[in-house]
């Protein structure tokens, strides 16, 4: 009997891992023909960041009680720096531009939905300086934590699963969901959820910075790969 249960368990496990491999983590609009090359407008950097396992980070970073605020601020700055490094012209738009926009969910796969604010149909977002950016990269959410799996956050069948407490931290991770928005025609050109893992021994700010660097690289790579052919 025990053997039977064991076999069943393995089968079920195989089934689940089989499903996990078949996720689609991005969606492209048929009209997405060219990835942003030198110029990009960004929004969402102020409010998108969330730190999980704050205590673990607090013990290592020495930010004290305000770890959540300070660490997310640090990550936000690091990400912006990194974007400035890879794109020659960056416009960072304040998050308040999207305050009045309705929150919508975008379907990436059968069970994968990402949520975020998108401008309404027929409303063109204007930058504070009065210009109209043709495309905006909207960062919806950046979850920073340890050994995070994106399916636990975005697969609605797994969202309510309690994740097991891990003794040893292998990686610090970032899960980022973003949309490349066609501001002129108000449509989502490319939407994706990325997961970035950075192995860590003794945590320092450099590790967080490195994590953000990898995140930006991953976003940039996916923006290129996502172009509809």
């Amino acid at each position, binding site marked *: 009997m025990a053997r039977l249960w064991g076999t069943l368990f393995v089968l079920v496990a195989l089934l689940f891992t089989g499903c996990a491999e078949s996720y689609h983590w991005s969606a492209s*609009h*048929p009209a997405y023909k060219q990835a942003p090359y030198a110029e990009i407008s960004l929004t969402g950097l102020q409010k998108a960041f969330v730190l999980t396992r704050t205590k673990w980070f607090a013990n290592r970073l020495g930010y004290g009680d305000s770890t959540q605020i300070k660490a997310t601020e640090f990550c936000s700055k690091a990400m912006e720096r990194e974007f400035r490094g890879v794109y020659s012209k960056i416009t960072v738009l304040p998050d308040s531009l999207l305050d009045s926009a309705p929150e919508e969910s975008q379907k990436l796969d059968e069970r994968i939905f990402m949520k975020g604010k998108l401008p*309404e*149909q*027929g409303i063109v977002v204007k930058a504070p300086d009065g210009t109209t950016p043709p495309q905006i990269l909207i960062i919806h959410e950046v979850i920073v934590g340890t050994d995070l799996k994106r399916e636990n956050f975005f697969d609605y069948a797994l969202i309510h699963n309690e994740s097991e407490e891990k003794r040893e931290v292998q990686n610090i991770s970032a899960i980022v969901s973003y949309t490349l928005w066609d501001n*002129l*025609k*108000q449509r989502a050109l490319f939407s994706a959820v990325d997961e970035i893992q950075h192995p860590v021994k003794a945590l320092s700010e450099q590790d967080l910075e490195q994590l953000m660097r990898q995140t930006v690289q991953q976003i940039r790579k996916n923006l290129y790969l996502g172009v509809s052919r």
Partner: protein
Amino acid sequence: MKRHSLGLFAFVLLLQLLFANTLCAKDVYFDSKWTLWQNADILIWTPEKEPPIDPKEFCLSLKRNNSGIGNPKCRLFGEWERDSLAVRYANWLANNMEPGLDAHYLKARHSSMAAKIQAVEDKIVLFIADKGSSLQIAIFDEKSSEPRAAGSVPKIADKIAQGDEIASTFFDRHTKRRLSKEERLKMETEPDDLYKETPNFRTWVGVSAGYAQAQIPLTPSNWYKRRVRSHVGNYRVTRDSVSLWNFIDDSTPLFTLYAGGIWFGFIGGEIFYRYSNHDVKIDEKDPVYEELDHWDFTQNEIGLNVMLSRTYSPLKWMDLHLFAFLGFQYSFYSEDIELKDSKKKPSKEYETRFKTEDPYKGALFGFGTQCVLLEHYGLSVRTGISSRGKDIYTEPSPEAAAEPTTIGASTVDWFISVGLEYHWTPFR
């Protein structure tokens, strides 16, 4: 037939395209099966200041192009043209409609806009946007918050010709009668035609006629050849006596009376009586049979089946029960033998002719279907294999050698029958 007419249609379309010599051909991006109502209410919705078509003339265009449309009503959709949310979506739609984009890319994302579309009831919203040399057309109905059809037509300065163009491209389809408010309400609350509760217990009686033979279909005939072709010599001699078919004819008509019942449409039972008549296979060339007028056996069988069933309802007035059964039976043979009138005293061989055992025990299994019309009148077809036998391994006794050989120790046949049944549900 359909394919041919489709082909013809495509051919005519091609010819029209060639001869019409339209530089900017009309282009339908997608077209789902939206319903065009008779006497349709058409609401013309456009973000342009000046509508490219005239509502009254468009109605006439519709009548000219589609004889089944009845008396359509067309008007500008002022409610939406004044609504800022709808105006925004209209502008967005005019901006975003492109060939190659599916309907879901053109969905109204704002929930209030989606609600507005779903509130148009059975009216048809005709969206028209001016694109310079062409007009973008989209059609909405209450069924979804994305366009049901979209495309473009060349722009024509004459509003009547423009209306004709749109009518022939998008409104050239079969029309359906519009339901009244009461009818629609009734349709919504009406139970499903095929909804039926399985009765707790259903019972039936039936009578069937069929046919039985030794050879089971799809098996080689040489398995049976020896038995089927054997003859009884001297009133009792055959090659072997294992099967009754060595002695009597195997292929005969079969008549059955039966009654059964089933619980929850799933498990049930059936009791039956079967009748058939078998001639003895006498060797006509043997002079010993000259005295004989006729010799045959009547086979009477009673038995009990257990059956498992599954019900399908392909039509409202028809139930189809597929079933498999397994049962046992007792077979009794009664002999009917008579000498010719001229013969006063039978021969010695006649006196020592073979006798059947009484009764034979057997099993049967098979499957079938009951097709019940209007809940009561059933037509049933079933087929299966039945056996009859005698335990030959009896205790040996000193008289064993003197006793006649047991015949028909293992006899199998195949049967098929068609029955008429009456079904009812006694306990509601």
